[in-house]
């Protein structure tokens, strides 16, 4: 395979989030991408369709999200670094396959360019059947998205478990100056299918039901396979470092928690309150799973109250409450905020609005 793109970091360029994410995936070694158009995921698919063939990769415009995830599943089984994605609605269609891909222990990066922030549960709990977890990374802007895309491909390769990158409309459609990292090449893993183990009496098998062959006198033993998957998941959770952005928490009486692009607006509100002398701190979880629970627990010890902003009915709120464990009252200062398109343009993301809500919590 010949690579036309030079293997060094590029100069800073002004890119929309979607294009930055696509370029970052290619730089991270992604060589197979499949998707079905849906706002605000569409532009990622467009850019991959244009750029992936230039580096010898394959991009498929699938007939539906069902086929998109299926094609990515097949490509992942060949050891090709693969990704797919959609918005939350399209990912709902993909959930059956996502469950089984996880139980088949295949690596895959899954983008959710979500509308508002209603897909927190879908991403962190999984909307599919069975017993599995996905790692979930949540960038606040295009520059962080580039870093997290690289991390996602590293993590999925290391743990053979899908990794979800949860973005949103703002991330997809906001342009900023970013630097795409150097091109990374990845080794083909030993478990990958290419047909060559056929006839050796030990032909490879990749299956969500297990990998034990009947010749080994056991056949599929789903109880054993599922237990192995649980053990692998637990090892992954124990070894993946939870990440968060933390600001001004040391002397804070109120801690505000938010994730994703809205986190940047909340951070601006917190900074404004700080400059007004309010003892407020800020935590933005970057890994939504594993959730930075220990960090939140430590930072909120002894505070007067905790406030959570998210553009939904209150989903991450559960994880914050579990982390705080009743040591402080947790107030919800978010709520669904949409324009008529429903894509996630949030009238509430006005720093003065957020400042007022945090002040209300402070006054309680």
């Amino acid at each position, binding site marked *: 395979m010949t690579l036309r793109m030079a293997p060094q970091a590029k100069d800073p360029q002004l890119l929309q989030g979607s294009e930055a994410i696509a370029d970052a995936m290619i730089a991270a070694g992604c060589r197979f991408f499949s998707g079905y158009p849906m706002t605000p995921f569409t532009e990622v698919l467009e850019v991959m369709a244009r750029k992936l063939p230039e580096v010898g990769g394959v991009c498929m415009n699938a007939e539906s999200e069902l086929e998109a995830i299926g094609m990515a599943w097949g490509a992942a089984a060949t050891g090709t670094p693969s990704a797919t994605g959609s918005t939350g609605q399209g990912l709902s269609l993909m959930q059956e396959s996502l469950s089984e891909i996880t139980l088949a222990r295949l690596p895959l990066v899954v983008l959710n360019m979500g509308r508002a922030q209603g897909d927190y549960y879908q991403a962190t709990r999984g909307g599919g059947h069975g017993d599995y977890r996905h790692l979930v990374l949540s960038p606040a802007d295009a520059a962080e998205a580039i870093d997290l895309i690289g991390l996602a491909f590293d993590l999925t390769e290391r743990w053979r478990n899908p990794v979800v990158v949860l973005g949103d409309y703002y991330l997809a459609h906001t342009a900023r100056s970013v630097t795409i990292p150097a091109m990374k090449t990845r080794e083909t893993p030993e478990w990958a299918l290419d047909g060559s183990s056929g006839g050796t009496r030990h*032909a490879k098998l990749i299956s969500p039901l297990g990998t034990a062959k009947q010749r080994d006198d056991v056949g599929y033993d789903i109880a054993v396979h599922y237990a192995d998957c649980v053990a692998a998941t637990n090892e992954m959770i124990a070894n993946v470092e939870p990440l968060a952005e933390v600001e001004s928490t040391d002397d804070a009486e109120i801690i505000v928690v938010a994730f994703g692009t809205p986190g940047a607006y909340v951070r601006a509100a917190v900074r404004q309150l700080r400059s007004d002398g309010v003892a407020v701190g800020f935590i933005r979880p970057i890994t939504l799973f594993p959730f930075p629970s220990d960090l939140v627990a430590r930072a909120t010890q002894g505070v007067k109250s905790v406030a959570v902003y998210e553009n939904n009915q209150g989903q991450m709120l559960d994880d914050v409450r579990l982390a705080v464990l009743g040591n402080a009252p947790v107030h919800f200062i978010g709520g669904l905020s949409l324009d008529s398109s429903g894509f996630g343009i949030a009238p509430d993301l006005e720093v003065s609005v957020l400042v007022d809500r945090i002040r209300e919590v402070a006054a309680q």
Partner: protein
Amino acid sequence: MSTSLPTNNPPDEPSRLVDDFVPTLIDVGAHHLCPGCGEPIAMRCVMEAIDERELTARSVAVFGIGCYTAFSNNLDIEVLQALHGRAPSLATGVKRAKPSTIVVTIQGDGDMVSEGLQEVLHAAARGENITCIMLNNGVFGETGGHMTATTVLGQRTKTSLEGRDAALHGRPILLSSLLAQIDGTAFVARGAVNSAGNVARTKKLLLRALTAQEQNAGFSFVEILTMCPTGWFIETEEAPDYLNDKLAAVHEPGVLKDVLGQ
């Protein structure tokens, strides 16, 4: 202590091993499918065709979900297990990512026509260089004999107890006939495994389909009519004739399309 079922016609000579033959590329030959099932015969045809074409070390079989899934973990070719109905998209991913592979899907009529019709139609229309194989017995055998999209009119199943009625249940989809009309298909044929002659003919169809894939000629498809005496609620020995009289009368065996040069 061995147990035996009571019978009115006990054998008049002790049992003896007639042959110790293990079919090509089927590791242990053991499966738990019912007596009289046609799927093991169809699987053996597929494996022999791959072996004869010397494609063993290039092949990846993508399995759907059905009774035949019993073979997904005892073959000596590489296997990727898919969800019910979803094998053609996985096969597409494998083939596009590793074009040197020979990719076949193994699916039933419930898998391919009921749950996964969209997948196979689009794979065919794309002219995907894969070979899809449908084992068609007109019932969901694994769940115990329920109506599928290929169940013929009049056929009794657990969800069409008085026989499939066009007014009540709709009509069967003749997938091979449908696929033959799509431009992306290179080879479309329907075989059966209810007689030695039909088994031999079916293997030739499979060899032709593999040739189409080797030549990158486009999508190739072989439908194989298989017996399911359990799901048809008939005696085992009646199944080959039942296949002939009922299924094959509607899903007619033969080559429906072949664009390869002779």
